[in-house]
Each structure stands twice: as structure tokens, then as C-alpha cells.
């Protein structure tokens, strides 16, 4: 079997899983649905390995394979086929997506155990993975957009999965609409590509682009900027990020899936995939990098102050995606994608650990209420700390190597790009602080009531309430069921978290400066034409960067230790000292309010105006005016006793008949 055959299988398994579960929802037992879903993604992972093996058989320069299933919608000069592109980049993405998703499915089998909508959940979950795989394997712009939008739909379905919750449905809608804005950006970019290059095919358009465009030509900058609209909407970068924190309304495994393996990484993938265009439009690439940096810093500040456990991790995702966007935009493709992989490991792990903790807290998500879980939940606590270490880029962990790969590249390019190095290190300090704000709050300190209860062997139970609004939950649909699941008691959850823990700790070995360069060699098949790809910082410079990173990471953890363990009152005093700043961060820099005032309210106001004024006065006015005129005329002609329609019709028929007769006469 060739690499492309394996790639078709990668797509087929999740789609089949989703369909089987959806159609068989009355027949399948809940358990069966969960395991079918997990097996489907597992098989997709195995097929990805198959594709990898076959691809490695090819010589480096021949590692871009395409294959077409059928003509999807080709007519009138547009050629749109159901075709895939298999190259190192897409295979890498398939491996990360399916690998981490398999573990998330495994975790969900136990975590969602008592949820009434178990089958629906797994059907959506499989569809989500299918969409993401379609996105990364697409061989032309149209299929890319299809996968892109399917991801948006799947995220909508899963965010508003507990659809009896008003907050969940609103959040789902927000995510969907912002994502559609991104889709529109991509569609317009595709039209530009078609106009200038005459094709929707990815490889063909890249080839044509280098011959057609000059560097920084207006059109190619426009194309890239439109693509950035798509990338930023999906990857939750400023200013299209507001859906992401609200997306925490979904079940915790969904948060893990959206934030780690799929969806938010799509924007990073897009920029990397479109590198031939972005390298022709350095202005657009710089815009992307600066917005990525802004996101990175803004999100870190918010993560320092919000108190909802899942939302802290959500803002952390935004911030880490910011690093990746900076990376692929400035040309650090290996670094950006490397960070994408390591982040998938440690972020999925963090979400899973958080899910376990939240379950132990009987659905309370406020970290101010949590403390001292180290004895009650040793496994969860340990793996939470592992995840936090990798997030904080603690020396030796996976995040340590991947983050610094990006920053070392920025340093190496020098000049303006040093801003990214400096900004990146500032962000890294904040990252280390908020990572261990979570770590120390949850793990250390006096055990809270729920932790003590668990130590006595009893899992805390409470009346289920919506953590956002406090209203009682609808347990039928709208809450993960009456039972809570923690990793200590459920083997599938523990296995999934342990494997991710290993990845988070040791995933860095793939790319250690001066020692290994596995990813760099692998990606050569995709990026060999890029001059930036061949720009590799010297080993010494990289290690110097790593040393700085190590110091910052340890310093951040030390600050967190001081603030949350040694002297817990210090944050409270800081808060009193700087109330305005705190409020500014805690209200998320007022982006939601801004969006509301600039987009949502004007649109509603226009609609109201159209409905109450325009429709009555203008649209009805046309017919009323006409009717009035006829009524007046008919009153003159034959008195006011007849209905205006009859008079109107008669007048019209008479008038037009006269016109017709005129023409007949004129013709003869």
C-alpha cells in the first residue's frame, strides 16, 4: 500500500466510526459506542504510522504525494476534486492529531461514563477528528475549507453538547459564528488565488505563485491577510479569540481535544502549509507574528488573574498558540510545529488532570476553592505537576526544547525579530508563574473539604450546578451525569494521562540542539524550497538561549512558590494595590465588550430598524402608495364602492391591453 492509500484510511476510520455510532444509536450500548469511537481513532493512528513508513521509503525530494478519489465539483472552468496531499507536514499533523485524540477518546470512555448522551458524544468526537484530518490532508483549497468548516461545526456541536445549559448554547454559537468569519476569509483568499494563478490546487498554486508574484506584491499580501483571518479565527488569536474561553462550556475531554490536538492548531498548520505564499508576502508574515506576540502576552496576563481552572488553561492555550504563530510566521517552521506537538502532549494532560480534579470537586471549577489534593489524588496531582513543568518549560521537559527552538530562531534572524525573543521570554516568565499557580493551588496547602472527604475514601457529591451561572443543572442532558470519575479510580483515564505524561516529559528528545534533529530532517520534504528553513541557529547560540530559558522558567516557578505557598497573602495585597490593572486583566482586556459594541449591537440595531421602520414605511409604502393611487383613480372613474384590487387589476389590464393593441396596430 502506498502512503496515499494509508492516508485515505486515516480519513476513513474516523468517518466510519462517527457514522456507525450515529446511525446505530438505538442499537449500540453506551460502552460499545465508546470503544468503537476509540478504536476508530486508534486505527487512524495506526494508518498514520503506515503512511509515515511508506513516506520515509521515498527519497526526500519525492515526499509530496497526491491522490484523487473523484471529481467532486468540476465544471465551468473550475476544477475541484476530492484530492489529498500527503507530505511530511500532513503526516506529522495526522500523527499528532490521531495520537493525542486516541488518548482523549480513551479518557472519555471512563470520564463520560454516566452521561445520558454518551453515543452522541462519541459520534461528534469522531467527526471532530475526521474534520481535522480532512483539513490537514486536503490537496486543494476547497477541500481545505471543507475540513476547516467541519472543524468549526464539530466544535459547535461539542461546545453546546450540554444543550440544556443556556451558557453552553450561547458559547457554541459564538464559536461557530466567529469561525464562519474565518471561513469567509479563506474563501475569499481562494478566489484571489484562482484569479491570479488559475487553480485551486495547493501544490500547483505554490509553483505558479513563485513565478507570478514578486515579493510583497499587493495581491499576495492580500491573499495572506485573508488567510490570516481564517487562521486567527480558528487558532483564537487576537482579535478573533473571544470564543475560546467560552468554549470551556463543553465537557472537559472536549476542551482537551479542541485545545491540544485539533482545532486551535489549525491556524498554525495553515500558515506553515502556505509558507510559499507567506514567504512572498513578508509584510503579512510580520503582521501575523506581531499579532501572535500580542496574543501571547495578553493571554498570559489574563491567565494570571482568572480563577476558573479550565479558563486559566484555556488562556494558556491561546498564549502557547501565540508562540507557534510567531514561530511559523517568522520562518521557524520546525520550532513552531515542534511546539505544536509538545503542547499537544502537555496541554491534553493538563486538561485531563483538571477534569479529574473538577470531578473530585463535584464540578466546582474555581481554584480559590481547591487545595491540598496531593494525598487524596496522588496520581492526578503528580501528572498535573508534570504537565505544569512542561508548560513552564522546566529544563529537560519537552516544552523547554520546543519553546526555545522558536526563540533561538528569532534571535538568529536578529534585527526587528529580537522583539519576539524578548517578548517570548517575558511571556515565558508569566507562563511559569500561572502554570504553578495552578500546580501549587491544587496540589499543596491544607486539604480542602472535598480533598479530605476523598482521603476518607468518599468522592464528594453535590447538587449539580452550572459553574458559570449557579443555576441547577438539568441532569438528564446538560450535565455529565450523576457520577463523577477520577483518574485514581478509572483505569482508562489513568492510562491516557500516564502516556501523555511520558510524552510531556520526554517529547523533547526529537529535537535537542546539537544532539538530535529528527523533525528538521523529516520536514525537509515539505520545506526544502524555503530559504528560511535552511537558516538554522548555531548549536552554541541555541544552548545560550536554552540557558536563559531555564533561568526564567525556574525564576517563574520560584515566584509562584513564594506567592502561593510561602506567603499566600501576597497576591491579595497585590490585588489591593493594583485594583484597576487587576480588573482590566480579569475582564479580559474588555475584548468581549468591544466586540459586543462594534459588531453584535449594531447588527441587531440595523435589524430592528429594518423591521420596524423600513419594512413598514418603504416596502409596504410601495404597495400602499400604488393602491392609494388606484383607489383615488377608481373613485374618480366609478365611485368608491368597488374594492381597490378589482379596480387596480382592471386598470392594469385595460392599460396594458391598450399598449398591446398599440403594438399590434403599429406592426400591421
Amino acid at each position, binding site marked *: 500500500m502506498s502512503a496515499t492509500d494509508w492516508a485515505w484510511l486515516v480519513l476513513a476510520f474516523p468517518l466510519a466510526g462517527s457514522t456507525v455510532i*450515529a446511525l446505530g*444509536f438505538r442499537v449500540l450500548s453506551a460502552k460499545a459506542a465508546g470503544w468503537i469511537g476509540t478504536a476508530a481513532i486508534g486505527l487512524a493512528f495506526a494508518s498514520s504510522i503506515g503512511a509515515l513508513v511508506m513516506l520515509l521509503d521515498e527519497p526526500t525530494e519525492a515526499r509530496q504525494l497526491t491522490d484523487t478519489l*473523484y*471529481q*467532486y*465539483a*468540476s*465544471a*465551468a*472552468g*473550475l476544477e475541484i476534486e476530492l484530492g489529498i496531499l500527503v507530505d511530511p507536514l500532513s503526516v506529522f499533523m495526522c500523527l499528532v492529531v490521531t495520537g493525542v485524540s486516541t488518548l482523549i477518546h480513551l479518557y472519555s470512555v471512563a470520564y463520560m461514563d454516566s452521561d445520558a448522551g454518551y453515543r452522541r458524544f462519541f459520534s461528534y468526537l469522531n467527526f471532530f477528528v475526521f474534520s481535522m484530518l480532512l483539513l490537514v490532508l486536503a490537496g486543494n483549497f*476547497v477541500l481545505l*475549507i*471543507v475540513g*476547516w*468548516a*467541519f472543524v468549526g*461545526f464539530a466544535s*459547535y456541536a461539542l461546545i*453546546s453538547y450540554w*444543550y*440544556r445549559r*443556556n451558557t453552553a448554547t450561547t458559547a*457554541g*454559537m459564538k464559536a461557530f*459564528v466567529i469561525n*464562519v468569519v474565518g*471561513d*469567509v476569509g479563506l*474563501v*475569499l483568499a481562494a*478566489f484571489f488565488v*484562482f*484569479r491570479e494563478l488559475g487553480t485551486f490546487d495547493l501544490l500547483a498554486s505554490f509553483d505558479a505563485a513563485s513565478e507570478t508574484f514578486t515579493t510583497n506584491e499587493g495581491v499576495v499580501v492580500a491573499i495572506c491577510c485573508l488567510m490570516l483571518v481564517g487562521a486567527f479565527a480558528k487558532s483564537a488569536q487576537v482579535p478573533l479569540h473571544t470564543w475560546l474561553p467560552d468554549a470551556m462550556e463543553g465537557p472537559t475531554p472536549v476542551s482537551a481535544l479542541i485545545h491540544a490536538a485539533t482545532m486551535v492548531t489549525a491556524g498554525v498548520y495553515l500558515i506553515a502549509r502556505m509558507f510559499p505564499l507567506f514567504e512572498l508576502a513578508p509584510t503579512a508574515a510580520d503582521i501575523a507574528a506581531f499579532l501572535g506576540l500580542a496574543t501571547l502576552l495578553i493571554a498570559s496576563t489574563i491567565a494570571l488573574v482568572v480563577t476558573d481552572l479550565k479558563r486559566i488553561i484555556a488562556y494558556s492555550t491561546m498564549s502557547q498558540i501565540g508562540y507557534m504563530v510567531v514561530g511559523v510566521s517568522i520562518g521557524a517552521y520546525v520550532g513552531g510545529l515542534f511546539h505544536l506537538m509538545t503542547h499537544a502532549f502537555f496541554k491534553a494532560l493538563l486538561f485531563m488532570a483538571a477534569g479529574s480534579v473538577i470531578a473530585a470537586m463535584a464540578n466546582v471549577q474555581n481554584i480559590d476553592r481547591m487545595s491540598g489534593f496531593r494525598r487524596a489524588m496522588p496520581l492526578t496531582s503528580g501528572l498535573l505537576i508534570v504537565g505544569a513543568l512542561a508548560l513552564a518549560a522546566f529544563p529537560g521537559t519537552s516544552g523547554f526544547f520546543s519553546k526555545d527552538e522558536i526563540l533561538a530562531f528569532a534571535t538568529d534572524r536578529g534585527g526587528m525579530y529580537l522583539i519576539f525573543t524578548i517578548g517570548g521570554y517575558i511571556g515565558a516568565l508569566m507562563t511559569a508563574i500561572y502554570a504553578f499557580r495552578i500546580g501549587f493551588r491544587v496540589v499543596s496547602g491544607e486539604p480542602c473539604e472535598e480533598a479530605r472527604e476523598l482521603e476518607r475514601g468518599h468522592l464528594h457529591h453535590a447538587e449539580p450546578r452550572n459553574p458559570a451561572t449557579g443555576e441547577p443543572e*438539568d441532569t438528564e*442532558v446538560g450535565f455529565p451525569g450523576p457520577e463523577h470519575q477520577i483518574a485514581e479510580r478509572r483505569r482508562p483515564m489513568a492510562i491516557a494521562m500516564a502516556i501523555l505524561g511520558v510524552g510531556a516529559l520526554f517529547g523533547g528528545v526529537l529535537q535537542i540542539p546539537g544532539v538530535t534533529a529528527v523533525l528538521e530532517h523529516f520536514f525537509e520534504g515539505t520545506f526544502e524550497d524555503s530559504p528560511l528553513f535552511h537558516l538554522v541557529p548555531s548549536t552554541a547560540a541555541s544552548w545560550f538561549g536554552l540557558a536563559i530559558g531555564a533561568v526564567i522558567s525556574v525564576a517563574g516557578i520560584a515566584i509562584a512558590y513564594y506567592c502561593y505557598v510561602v506567603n499566600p497573602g501576597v497576591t491579595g495585597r497585590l490585588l489591593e494595590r493594583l485594583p484597576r490593572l487587576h480588573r482590566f486583566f480579569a475582564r479580559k482586556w474588555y475584548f468581549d465588550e468591544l466586540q459586543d459594541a462594534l459588531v453584535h449591537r449594531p*447588527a*441587531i440595531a*440595523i*435589524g*430592528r430598524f*429594518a423591521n420596524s421602520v423600513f*419594512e413598514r414605511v*418603504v*416596502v409596504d409604502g*410601495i*404597495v400602499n402608495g*400604488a393602491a392609494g393611487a388606484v383607489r383615488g383613480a377608481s373613485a374618480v372613474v366609478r365611485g368608491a364602492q368597488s374594492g381597490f*384590487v378589482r379596480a*387596480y*387589476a382592471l386598470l*392594469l*389590464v385595460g392599460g*396594458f391591453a391598450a*399598449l*398591446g393593441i398599440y*403594438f*399590434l396596430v*403599429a*406592426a400591421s
Partner: protein
Amino acid sequence: MLNVLLWMPLAIGILCLVLPHRVAPWVATIGALARLGLAIGLVIGFDLGVSELQHVVDESWIPDLGVRYSLAIDGISVFLVLLTALLWAGVISFSALRGHHEQRGRRRLFYFLLGLGETATLGAFLAQDLLLFVLFFDLMLIPFFFLIGIFGGRDRIAATTKMIVYTLVGSLLMLVGAIATAILVAQDTGELSFSIAELRANLLSTGSQEWIFCFFAAAFLVKMPAFPIHGWMPDAYRAAPLPVLVLLSGVLAKVGAYGFLRIVLPIYPDATVTFQEVVMVIAVASILYGSVMAFTQTNLRLVAGYSSVAQLGFITLGIFSLRSDGADGAVLQMVNHGLVVAAIFLIIALLYERARTEDLTRMGGLATRAPVLAALFLVVTMATLAMPGSANFIGEFYILNGAFQEKIAFAFVAAIGVALAAFYALRLYQRTMHNRLPEGAESREISRRDSLVLTPLVACIVALALWPGLILERGEASVEDKIAAVAEAREPPVAMR
């Protein structure tokens, strides 16, 4: 074959008038399914890649006036004929399966009127003679006037009156335009003919084309309806019985768009070029206005109604991009929109039974006990908002690409409509199916008899999503032929005149 297809609905409709009450609906259903079979046969037997007319029937009718009874199909009409047969079959069987409660004891009349309406609509799609087209176009009005006037809801008389005033004006304008065209051409050629092919071969002077264009455009735009002459739509949609609304919005609206492709582009090419931007502005205004209105309405029917205004705006935009990709996308989108809007109105009928209201603000939570209904509705919602992966997306993609390559600004503005569609369609779904169930509403699974109609309809939407090329490939040659007619007008050959 076309004769059988065209006159069968009327014949069976008349038969229904004399048959016993209990039998008539089932006879009508069997007839409708037979026509659906015939229409499918037409698609299967369709000769791909040929722009010429197929299955031509051409008889002299009124020789003195040069009117011929000529019918045919081509790549543009073949799927519209299928859509007509499909939706009529759906509506007739939907009504037959549910018995008589919506028909006020006059079910035989109901099925007769439906039959008459189908004959008129098929006639409009099949006619290849200008006057024949106009006659069928006007004939459509009569059964729908009675269907709404007799079987409608509150305020049905006022609503039908308004609808008739609007559409009659358009129809009469069109009649005058048709007669004028034939006579003015006859002045040149010396022979009176209404044949569309003849008229295309002997074009009018630019000045005459322009005013006649306006007459035809008025008739077609009212029928769609397009902004700002959609005033009849809200009242009529509120009053019409839902099965009738399926046909009104799903099929009749398309006749207007179809008329542009069949008649206006080939016969009035110079005027088409002149007024291209005007119509594009109307189209884009319809898209934006329809979308904005759709997300402020609280009545389910009006959400769907205004969304149709927006969708027909897209179709018009595609046709007036005057490029074959835009127009081919418009053909595809006509079928797509017919399918989804039909499904939506049927679903609204089901929602009404469960929530006892058509007011969005008083609905919610209907998905809980109705997973199948929710899933079907979700598929339809996604198709409505032109989710990539649906055939509707491919239709919009072709249309917008046509507009983009022709006049880039229109495509950018129209693209806003795509984002707005996501909002209104999702709002429709969410406010009815999700959140908490209000007092008095009951979540109930779709019944087997209703799913007998709705499931095949959704299956069609899904099948088309997997292969939109089915329609695009068959429409391609005919559409290119129509566009070629306009292209000549844009660059007149130097040698002529």
C-alpha cells in the same frame, strides 16, 4: 414524454375532484410518485455535455400569432423539473399521510389545485415559446391564490390580495413585454414568432431591449421575491398553509431566477449587459437585507422567508455575474435552496405541533426526546447556512467566484451575507431545539409517517453534498450557451452593421 409529465398532474387533479374523499389523496400521491419517476428518468437519460434542447416537442398552436406549443429540457431545466416533481410528491404525500385536518373538509379541491399548480410550474420550466412561458407563468398564480385564500391561516384574504396585486403587476408587464418583443422583431423579419430560439436569432435594438428588460425583470424579481419588492412575502408566508409554502418558496421562487437564464439573457443580451450592475446591486441588497431581517424575526416562517430572500439574492448574483461559473452555481443553488427550504417548512410544521407556537421566543428544548428529528433538522440547518461540505456551499462558492472574478466588490459585500447566514440559521435551530423546554411544549420524536417524507428529502441533501458535480456537470453546457449569448453583446463583432 414531456407531454405526459406536463399534463398528468392536471389530469389526476381533475380525477381527484370526482373521486371519493378517502381515495383522492392516495390517487394523487401515486400520480405524484409516478411523475417523480418520470423526472428521474429524464435526468438519467440526459445527454451530458450537449447544449442543445432535448426531448423536443414542437407543434403549431396559434399559427396566426406565431405561437407554438413547444416544450423541451436542457441542462438548466432538467433538475428544476426534477425538483418540482420531488417537492410536489413530498407535499402531496405529506398531506395525504396526515389526513385532512389542514384541508377544511375540501380535500378534493386541495389536491386538484395542487395538480393544477404543478402543471403550470412544469409548463413554465418546459416552455420554449415565449408566450407559452408567459401563460404558464400566469397560470401558476391561480391555484396558489386559492390554496392560500381557502386553506390559509389568519388574515389569508388580505395576504392573498397583496400577493396578487404584486404578482399581477409583474405578470402583466411581462405579457406586454413578450408581445412587444415578438411584434418588434416581426417588423424586422416580417414573420410573427414567439419561439425563443427565433427571437434569440433576431435581436431587438438596444433601446427596445432595455425597457422590455425592465418589464421582465420586474416580474421575475417580484416572484423571487427580491428586495425591495418583497412586500407581499411576509403576509403571504404568515397566512399560507405550510405544505403550500414549501412549494411557494421551494419551487415558485425559482421560476423567477430561471426566467432570467431562459429568456432575459438570450433575448435581451444588450440590456442585460447594460443593467448588469443594477441587478447585482439588487441581488447584494437582497442578500444583506434578507439576512439581517432573518435574524431579527421571531416567527419561524418569516426567518425562513427572509432567508429565502437572501438565498435568491445569491442566485441572482450568480446569474448576473454573466460568467458561466457564477450561472452554473446559480443553477445548482436553485435546486439546493428548493430542497432545504422545503425541509425547513416541513420541520416548522412538526415544531408547531410540539410547541403549539411558531414564535421563536416561546420555544426551546425540543431536541431532548427527539434525537432523530434533531439530527435531521441539524443537517438541514447546516445546509441552509451553506456549510462547506454541503452542496449549498459549492453553489455559493461558484456564485461568489463568478461575482469575484467579474466585480470583486460585490463578492466582498455578498460574503458578509455568508457570515450572517450562519447566525440566523443557527439561531433558528438553537432557539427551537436547545435550551430549556418552556411550559406547554412537548418534546416528541418524529412520527414514522412524517419521517417517510422528511428523511428522503434530507437524504437528497446529503447525497447532493457528496456529489454536487451531478448538477454542475449537466448544467455546464447549457449555461455556457446562455452566457455566450451575452458575451457577444459585450464585444460586438466589428464586421456586423
